[in-house]
């Protein structure tokens, strides 16, 4: 079976003050469709950089990142933006909702990049909000929602385009334990019930334990890869 994500000889580094600083070194990683993978490691291990590269918001130094057969490392900026719009759902630690838009409008935002009509968009948004139990919060603005509710809106936004892949960067990092558990339960449900593929960065071993597989990085090197 062909993996959804196929990473080969991936390296990435920065140059600061004339000095080359390696961040990722010769990463090899396969992720199958429907997997829930947690990327763990200490600060500076390169896990967020790896997530950014998988999400197509950063460019590798060398190597390839094939997602559903497309080597995104070779895509130009415009093509990469189109690819992200069609294939990636983002969940951020601080939700990154637009404060001037209601929950409904925030969820509708990624659909503006699709060819759907206004009516179709509204139907899709209503379905997703219903799925996440946010019907009664549709007209609320982010500052009128709790952290957990905001993260659920962000999950709805990530889900609404039915992406190939969902990337989550510390999705429970700004939440209390109970709310964090609820959010992880939702992510788990997306994998179990909808067959979504999720790659999540986390510091929290308990959050990582909810994933089906945990990948450890240290100093830019993939040091461990095993089921949770």
């Amino acid at each position, binding site marked *: 079976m062909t993996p959804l994500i196929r990473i080969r000889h991936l390296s990435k580094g920065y140059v600061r003050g004339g000095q080359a600083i390696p961040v990722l070194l010769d990463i090899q990683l396969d992720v199958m469709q429907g997997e829930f993978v947690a990327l763990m490691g200490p600060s500076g291990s390169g896990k967020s950089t790896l997530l*950014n590269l998988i999400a197509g*918001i*950063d460019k590798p130094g060398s190597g390839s990142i094939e997602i559903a057969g497309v080597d995104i490392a070779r895509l130009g900026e415009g093509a990469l933006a*189109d690819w992200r719009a*069609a294939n*990636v759902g983002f969940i951020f*630690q601080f939700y990154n909702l637009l404060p*001037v838009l209601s929950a409904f409008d925030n969820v509708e935002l*990624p659909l503006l990049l699709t060819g759907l009509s206004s009516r179709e968009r509204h139907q899709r948004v209503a379905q997703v909000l219903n799925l996440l139990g946010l019907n009664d919060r549709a007209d609320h603005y982010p500052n009128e929602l709790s952290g957990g509710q905001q993260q659920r809106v962000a999950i709805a936004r990530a889900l609404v385009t039915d992406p190939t892949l969902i990337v989550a960067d510390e999705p429970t990092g*700004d939440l209390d334990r109970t709310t964090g558990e609820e959010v992880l339960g939702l992510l788990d449900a997306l994998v179990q019930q909808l067959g979504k593929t999720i790659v999540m960065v986390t510091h929290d071993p308990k959050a990582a334990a909810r994933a089906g597989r945990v990948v450890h990085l240290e100093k830019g090197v993939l040091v461990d890869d095993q089921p949770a």
Partner: protein
Amino acid sequence: MFLFKLLLKNAFRHKLRTGLTVLGLVVAICAFGLLRTIVDAWYAGVEGSSSTRLVVRSNISLTFPLPLNYAERLRSVEGVRQVSWSNWFGGVYITERNFFPQFAVDPATYLPLYPEYKIPEAERLAFLRDRQGVLVGRKLATKFDWKVGDQIPLRGTFYPGTWTFTLRGIWDGAEAKTDESQLLMHWGYINERVRQSARGRGRGDVVGVYIVGIDEPANAAAVAQRIDKQFANSLAETLTETEAAFQLGFVSMSEAILVAVQAVSLIIVVIIMAVMANTMTMTARERLAEYATLKALGFPPGFVVRLLLGESLLIAAIGGVAGLLLTWPLAAAFRSAAGTLFPIFQVSNLTMALQLAAALVVGLVAAAWPAWRMGRIDIVNGLRHVG
């Protein structure tokens, strides 16, 4: 629609900041319009001049008179249709603050040269019959609340003594640019009194300028040349020019001031541009993470650019339209306060168009740099801006 909703909400996210920016724009656009209107008012005489009238004056200076007997010789010049003359009277009505232009004219020949002065026939005839009668423009009559039949005393300056005239008629301008702030009196009456007075001996039978009517505006230069040639090498050589050029000569005396006024009006626009650019730069910096999020979701850089430019243009348009609307009542108040200082004081269509254009240019330029930067923002660095 979604984009418009988003930029509308963004524009009023910080109500105080947006309100102050709009206020600044209103003041700047209004000041720009008013200053331009003042400059226009200065040139109003030029605008209102006729292309079929020439003004003949002494070649030495406007203060040197021309002999009355030039009139007949002017009539004989080829291309000349009508000839009349006028003298600056320069009287004071109650106080010097009540300044308005007064001319002693030859009514029978003068009025036909100025068809833009619309006078009721009865009033025109009454004026022609009464040598102590005067005609005034509507604006002047309104200012002093004069009515036909009122006595108007003027204290002479060039022509000493107290002169009392009777208002015989009021003219309305055929167009908005027609001067309605003047007073016309009988040159013959003034000339007679001057000749009779001991101090005025030797000062009679002279005129300040001749006004010459021609058939074709295209012949103006040729006719002017013929006139000046006619009086070359005489005791009082002439300088003939179109009425517009004559009026422009007055305006050019204060050209430095006008240039300064125009420069100030542009500087005001540049200042508000800098203020608004600062506002938009702050706005863009605050929303760095939002723009990075939009780009991460797949929105192209052009969307971010449109968001910032659109927001800036929206704020500029609100300020521009409000400034434009406020210009009218302010111009009316200024016109009222200035009295007859400016015969014509109105906000022109061109000024209104320039006000709106200035507002839009301010909006575009102010957001150009932050929009360009945000369009090129690195997503990863932008997302780090959160928290």
